[in-house]
């Protein structure tokens, strides 16, 4: 590339944040317009990246590039092709570290032998067929969030700045090709999110924010240790000490960790998992918390129920996708064998998420918590598709990540409208809103149907492919997962019917029918305003377009899915059958 389009995309929101800081905080209208302009421009750039990526024939781009010290690996082919790569050195200790003579009379001590390995990491960006879709989704959702952000929001300027900083973090996670850079963005994105969570929302938000941060960071810190583990194990075995992802992916085919880790406890020694499996678990923990998968999900209902609508649009829409993204990008490529070893575990957690999320959604009375648990269930499908470890499943997972982002954002906008009009989130206090709010009810219906996987709407495509993939892995998984689809109809329709159908019911008016009459006469003005329509219509349109004509998304997603499946199916570099890239759908060893 002649100019660094990824860096420009990445730092445009940052520049926008600085620019917005220059606007006086009293000029709410200008701040909101600037926010929309910046997010729209970012969306434009991500679309340029998307189109340019899809326009380049994949075979032309498949070369391993930009590895400073990858000489010994240059012959090996990385199965994932990254484009628009940019690389700048960030910290290079190189060989000069051997100058460190932390000792005394010229090497007379055993102490001198341990020359530490160099620590190198770089600012390395690049995208593949997975990241381009998610980048576009992220930019779209941030724009939608900017649209639904009310001009009357308290401390509007701070909100706008924090939102743009979150966007930098999210885009950074998606584009970074260096483990340290990735971790850097992964954690740094939490800072603006934390401030957004403690600053805006209902009274429970402080607790919810703390819970979210502690959960996430606890998981991420183990991932940091695992990153060092990957670094030192790969370095020790291949001689290449690097945090560079393409190099590491290529190097994994040289790494063989068959030796199990031995523990000794009270004099008994026993073996448990090999190092690669430990590293897989550490990465998977961080990502499972972010997704979240079921035993690690308890931060989510609190966070989703206490947040404000614009925050939830991008928080639920894209931040939770980063976990699934990480599972694909890092777990499948860096730990191919462990991915197969732990396939039953991950599939089991996915099924647990699908079923538990669905059942919990049925039991909730708070409309935002219903959407939150529905989200857990839907994301279980994504993980199911990923760990089907075949092209159909992964293809479905990639599509479903995009679909779910669109659907969940629209759901939160609909539910947010209801909450803001009636100041309650209790399902039983509301009812019959279709009469006073026909436009909302109409849009909400499409969103609901998309959420429960109705054919001709977007989620159906993803869920279909995921179930197809899961069936190839094992029919049992597919059967269990389809129970989730049935439950989805139940909880989504319970939400929709409860809110829009039946007798008109509003909080505080149960006992006084006359009062209800009086209120209902004024309700005409309560329907969705132009702002919400502008935000919802593109999302609904996307649901229809992707549902009716999914072929292009499937075709392009399939290429990337095939690459990742190939990466996950590598066993050793010496196996020529696997190096040739022949990975038809769903053949498991």
């Amino acid at each position, binding site marked *: 590339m002649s100019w660094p389009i990824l860096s420009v995309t990445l730092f445009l929101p940052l520049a926008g944040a600085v620019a917005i800081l220059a606007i006086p905080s009293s000029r709410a209208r200008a701040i909101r317009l600037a926010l929309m302009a910046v997010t729209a421009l970012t969306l434009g750039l991500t679309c340029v990246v998307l189109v340019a990526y899809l326009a380049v024939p994949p075979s032309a781009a498949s070369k391993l590039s930009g590895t400073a010290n990858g000489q010994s690996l240059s012959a090996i082919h990385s199965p994932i092709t990254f484009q628009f790569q940019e690389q700048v050195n960030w910290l290079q200790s190189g060989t000069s570290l051997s100058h*460190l003579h932390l000792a005394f009379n010229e090497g007379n001590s055993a102490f001198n032998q341990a020359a530490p390995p160099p620590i190198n990491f770089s600012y390395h960006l690049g995208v593949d067929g997975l990241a381009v879709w998610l980048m576009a989704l992220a930019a779209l959702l941030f724009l939608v969030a900017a649209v639904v952000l009310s001009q009357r929001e308290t401390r509007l300027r701070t909100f706008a700045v924090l939102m743009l900083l979150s966007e930098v973090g999210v885009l950074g996670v998606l584009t970074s090709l260096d483990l340290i850079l990735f971790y850097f963005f992964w954690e740094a994105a939490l800072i603006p999110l934390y401030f957004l969570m403690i600053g805006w929302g209902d009274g429970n938000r402080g607790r919810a924010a703390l819970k979210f941060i502690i959960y996430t960071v606890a998981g991420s810190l183990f991932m940091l240790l695992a990153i*060092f583990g990957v670094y030192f194990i790969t370095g020790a075995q291949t001689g290449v000490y690097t945090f560079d992802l393409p190099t590491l992916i290529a190097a994994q085919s040289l790494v063989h960790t068959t030796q199990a880790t031995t523990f000794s406890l009270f004099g008994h020694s026993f073996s448990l998992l090999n190092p690669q499996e430990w590293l897989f678990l550490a990465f998977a923990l961080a990502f499972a918390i972010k997704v979240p998968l079921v035993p690690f999900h308890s931060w989510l209902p609190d966070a989703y129920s206490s947040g404000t609508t614009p925050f939830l649009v991008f928080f639920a829409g894209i931040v939770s996708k980063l976990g699934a993204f990480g599972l694909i990008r890092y777990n499948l490529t860096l730990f191919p064998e462990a991915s197969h070893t732990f396939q039953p575990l991950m599939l089991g957690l996915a099924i647990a998420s699908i079923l538990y999320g669905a059942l919990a959604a049925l039991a909730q009375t708070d409309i935002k918590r219903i959407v939150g648990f529905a989200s857990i269930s839907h994301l279980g499908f994504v993980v199911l598709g990923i760990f089907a470890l075949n092209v159909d499943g992964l293809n479905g997972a990639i599509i479903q990540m995009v679909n779910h982002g669109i659907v969940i954002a629209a759901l939160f906008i609909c539910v947010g409208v209801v909450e803001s009009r009636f100041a309650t989130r209790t399902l039983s206090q509301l009812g019959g809103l279709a009469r006073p709010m026909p436009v909302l009810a109409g849009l909400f219906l499409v969103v609901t149907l998309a959420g429960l996987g109705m054919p001709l709407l977007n989620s159906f495509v993803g869920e279909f492919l995921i179930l197809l993939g899961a069936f190839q892995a094992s029919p049992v998984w597919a059967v269990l997962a389809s129970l989730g689809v049935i439950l989805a109809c139940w909880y989504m329709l319970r939400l929709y019917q409860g809110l829009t159908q039946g007798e008109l019911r509003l909080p505080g008016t149960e006992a006084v029918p006359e009062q209800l009459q009086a209120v209902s006469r004024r309700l005409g003005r309560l329907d969705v305003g132009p702002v919400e329509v502008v935000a919802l219509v593109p999302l609904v349109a996307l649901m229809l377009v992707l549902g009716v004509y999914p072929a292009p998304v499937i075709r392009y997603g399939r290429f990337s899915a095939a690459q990742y499946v190939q990466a996950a199916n590598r066993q050793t570099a010496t196996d020529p059958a696997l190096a040739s890239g022949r990975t038809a759908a769903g053949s498991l060893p």
Partner: protein
Amino acid sequence: MTAATAPGYPLHFVPAGDLLGILPILIVGGGAVAVLMWDLVRPRHQEVWLAGLTGLFLLAALGTAIGQWVANSGPIVVFNGAYANDRFALFADFVVLITALAVVVLSPGYLRRRGLAEGEYYILLLASVAGMLVLDGALNLIVIFLGIELLSIPLYVLAGFARDDQRSQEGAMKYLLLGGFASGFLLYGMALLYGETGHTSLTAIHAFLLQGATSGHIDPMVLAGVGLLAVGLAFKVSAAPFHWWTPDVYQGSPAVVTTFMSVATKVAAFAVFLRLFSATLAPYRAEWTVPIAVVAIVSMIYGNVVAVAQTSIKRLLAYSGIAQAGYIMIGVALGRPDGTQASLYYLAAYAFMNTGAFAVVTILSRRGEDCDRYSELAGLGRREPVLAGLMALFMLSLAGFPLTVGFFGKFFLFSAAIHDGQLALAIWGVLTSAVSLFYYLRVILKMYAPAADVGSLEEFEVASVSPAGTAVAAPTAVGPAVLVVALAGAGTIVLGIFPALIYTLLQGISVVHG
């Protein structure tokens, strides 16, 4: 050496090269004398010049140290191998001197607000800094002891500097008694080491131990001496379980003294710790690495867990300091170059973030009493947006978030631990870091959450009135103090994005042993 060629030199019995080698110490020590004299003759009500003069001497010492860093590529050993002026010592000097400078800038406004006397304060501060510089390069047990006492005795006085504050008096007494006790341990350990090896020079001790260790002989008396030494030093760095004085002394001492004590003392004591263990005692590494690792883990757990329960900001920072000592101790326990490097990096990072955090406390302190209660932070985000933002930054840095220098501090420590296969250290470090989020983020929540969330309006009202009952006036003379906080904040961010700035300095570092 030089003495022979320069007859008639006034100090002909001390070679000039030796004096050059300890020039920063001489400047700081001379500064103490000069400030003492100036305090006698200065015009009344001109206290601020005392701070200016003190700062000038510290700057001169810092400039000299930088010059020495640039000039010497190789190690310089002076006074017959009693003091090393190597880059390891110079790096520690930088951190100590910069911290001391920050404290001196913070002091005048703070001392005036709290109505404390000024003259002696700066003299004691300079004397203590001189002790720290002595420790940074000490290559002899006697010199180490000299440095420890020169560092500690002024600090005992400084801790009790608020003479009409009972807590300050209590803290000072506690510090003095327990500090004397720790010195006893240290001295006993030195005596054992000397008795067994016959040397006080670290070089000679190293050679002696190396000889023994290569023939497979581990001397139990030496081990006992090393253990006692470690106890004495662990007391100075306030590592658990030798930390008992820390919370009371940090809380009782005037905030500027706490700032100085929490950062500079730790740096100097860790300099000795690192030199002694990773260089002198390297032959016995197999013996001491596990006990030191245990101290590190206990500190991390104890400091972080107990900090969660604190309601006083200074106590919170004290327990956080105990936890941070545990992290730095990881590098000591590894006893290898990358561990030492990581510890030094963390110390530099710690200087920025902890000085910054305490400086905010200093600025918020008012007449009669320090800003100490959690409730005093409520609503700070609205009242003082800049200070609150910087405080939040320091909290995030102490918690180890990326974009701050604290992240790379932990980064290098954990990576060194993993590389050396010390998984237990890394895992405990990670687990306790997660716990630490709880109290660091609670400080931020307190500052930014609306008053209704964190306490009643009444509490807020009480907090904004000082105990004396006088309404709070805008703190005076905080301009330079805010500058210190802003610089610490800038350092925290810049080093958090470009870790190479310090890391490359550390790459060429050498620790002289003899």
